[in-house]
């Protein structure tokens, strides 16, 4: 009698446990996001958050993660007083690495923030996938990346699905010469790491492709009046203007003042830093430049025309009722990389710490190829994507809505 009682108890316990398991859908694992969610950066971050959430939601619904359910949690904000902030990013990484339930992290948006974050996630061995960082120094040893991942220089933890500024800058030069057919460039940058770096890359390639840089200037983001610089540049007769920087460091204001000094007809090209949302959103390049935005082009360091685009757009619109913009597709792709790594890693089992390590180890392995919506990609030994494509977008005409895809340059085929 006694024995059977115990058996019943055990059976009940097993039943209850099983039921519990069934209702929660197995074990859960957290995927964290870190992006600037305030001020002008918010317009660039929201599409990424949407992309990641969509990918995770679809994967959970489809099952196939070997009994695991993923949650997007926590969504960390690396902005301070309305602008992205490296120290806030570093603080967020401390939070993330100390939460053992977090299996991987997606973000950040800005290279300067990544530079402060990678040392922390690298030490802890937490996989980080960025949908938007383009600074070459974050990954490539010849640009000083070993200083950033000095705790585990060979056990990398940081990958990105966008290509780098040493591709983005030159791509703009090739676009100016072969698509726009322009040969005389005026180049101005915001004197910051990203802006000056990418402008330098543009200048080098523009010269190599047979163009002439008629003038080269730099003006810090505190500048409000660019008319003197632009008047001087106009006198040199450029037929294209390249700006190295972001909207917050003068991108839109320069374009606006170009119109004022009579340079509205000269095409204007900027990097991904000026592709930050629609005409109607306050604080974006298109909004600040206003009527002068016509004839402006911006690049994204990622593929713009991919086979799954139509399908992705449909699903995205169905979920959010807005069009996917900026880096929403790369956010989705980052989530796909993480999902695949999780799927493979959970078969090895182990506790949270072991799981985190197997996710990292699987994801960064150069021999693994990922089927993402951007196409099939793999990462090299530094964590850079094999897809070396930069795409170009044109300001909408008439001035309404978002940037319109124009063309793309593929460096892998060169």
């Amino acid at each position, binding site marked *: 009698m006694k024995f059977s009682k115990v058996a019943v108890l055990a059976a009940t316990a097993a039943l209850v446990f099983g039921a519990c398991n069934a209702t929660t859908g197995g074990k859960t694992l957290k995927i964290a996001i870190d992006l600037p969610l*305030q*001020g*002008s950066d918010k317009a660039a971050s929201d599409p990424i958050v949407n992309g990641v959430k969509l990918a995770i939601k679809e994967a959970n619904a489809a099952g196939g993660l070997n009994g695991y359910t993923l949650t997007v949690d926590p969504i960390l904000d690396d902005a301070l*007083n*309305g*602008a992205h902030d490296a120290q806030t990013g570093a603080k967020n990484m401390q939070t993330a690495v100390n939460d053992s339930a977090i299996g991987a992290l997606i973000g950040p948006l800005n290279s300067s923030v990544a530079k402060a974050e990678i040392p922390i996630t690298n030490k802890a061995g937490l996989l980080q996938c960025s949908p938007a960082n383009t600074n070459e120094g974050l990954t490539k040893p010849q640009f000083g990346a070993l200083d950033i991942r000095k705790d585990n220089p060979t056990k990398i933890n940081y990958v990105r699905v966008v290509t780098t500024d040493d591709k983005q800058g030159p791509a703009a030069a090739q676009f100016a010469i072969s698509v726009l057919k322009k040969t005389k460039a005026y180049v101005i940058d915001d*004197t910051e790491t990203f802006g000056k770096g990418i402008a330098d890359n543009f200048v080098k390639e523009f010269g190599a492709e047979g163009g002439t840089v008629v*003038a*080269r*200037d*730099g*003006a*810090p983001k*505190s*500048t*409000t*009046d660019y*008319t*003197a*610089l632009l*008047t*001087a540049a106009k*006198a040199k007769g450029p037929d294209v203007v390249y700006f190295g920087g972001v*909207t*917050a460091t003068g991108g*839109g*204001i320069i374009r*606006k*003042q170009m*119109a*004022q000094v*009579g340079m509205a007809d000269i095409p204007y090209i900027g990097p991904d830093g000026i592709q930050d949302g629609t005409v109607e959103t*306050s*604080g974006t390049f298109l*909004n*600040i430049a*206003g009527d002068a935005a016509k004839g402006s082009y911006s690049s994204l360091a990622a593929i713009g025309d991919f086979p799954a685009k139509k399908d992705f757009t449909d699903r995205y619109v169905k979920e959010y009722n807005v069009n996917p913009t900026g880096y929403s597709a790369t956010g989705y792709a980052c989530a796909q990389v993480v999902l695949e790594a999780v799927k493979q890693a959970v078969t090895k089992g182990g506790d949270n710490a072991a799981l985190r390590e197997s996710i990292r180890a699987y994801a960064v392995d150069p021999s693994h190829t990922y089927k993402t919506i951007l196409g099939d990609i793999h990462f090299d030994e530094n964590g850079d994507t094999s897809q070396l494509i930069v795409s170009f977008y044109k300001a909408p005409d008439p001035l309404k809505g978002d940037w319109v895809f124009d063309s793309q340059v593929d460096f892998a085929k060169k």
Partner: protein
Amino acid sequence: MAAPSAALTARPTPVRISRNVRMGILAMLWVVAFYALIGPQQVANALTLGAIYALIALGYTMVYGIIELINFAHGDVFMIGAFVAMFLTTNVLGIHGSINDPIRLTVTLVIVFAVTMTATSILGVAIERLAYRPLRHAPRLAPLITAIGVSFILQNVALFLFGPASVNTPQLINPGLHLDLLGASVAYVNIFIFVLAIVLMFALNLFVGRTRLGRAMRSTAQDPQASQLMGVDLNQTIAVTFLIGSALAGAAGVIQGIYLGSAKWDFGFNGGLKAFTAAVLGGIGNTTGAALGGFIIGFLEVAAASKGYGRWSEAIVFSVLIAVLIFRPAGLFGQQIGERA
């Protein structure tokens, strides 16, 4: 015997006029030199930029002349002025672009300038009353730190109300309308700004030189105790100084918005810094000096930018400032109002 007496009678020539004429000639030579160096188009840019700096610099120099305070919040009053004008035109008057009808344009400009200048002068007087007057007899560092604090408060208020990104301001005067003038194609908005700045400066000059309150200001600058004994109301005089200085900063804010079409929460810092430099360059406490200092800095910046040294423009401006202060510690034009260092 006749000769020396003639020399004696000839001596007290009206020094004031000859000094003004001298300055006028110097200013003309300066403009002509730059006209040759950077071309007519850039001279127009420099005069516009200089006019904005000069209007802000006047507020710094007047306050310093009267109470020896470097009012660091002054640049942010200028920034608030730009936002008041932005809010007034877009949200209250519902205007989002240029106005081509001259009568409507004039009326709008009068309303915008009047309201903005009134608002910033109230702000300036309130800052003086709440933050500086209680500290008037405190050690000099206390009001200085307070001024920096007020500057941060104003910046954060603007950040909170208008957000961190640049905010579009309607360019009321169509920036595409140009006038061919002395070999340059100058936008009407540039001409308007320059003329308005000169008119405001002359009005200030008349006010300080010809009115009772102006005389009270000058006497307070020379010796507050003695002027108080002579019946000058010290608090009123100081409040009027803040009122005028802040009104001019507000005008500069409106001008900046109309000219460049945007306002941002932190641009008071840069504008304030350059204007403060202009005031020191001209001789702080000296209104004519501050105005000319503003134009000099405008010219230096534009010259640097037009010659391809844009990256160095701030270094050039401050090198000139240091060089001037080494040889003329009281600034280029000395201290006209204040007698104290």
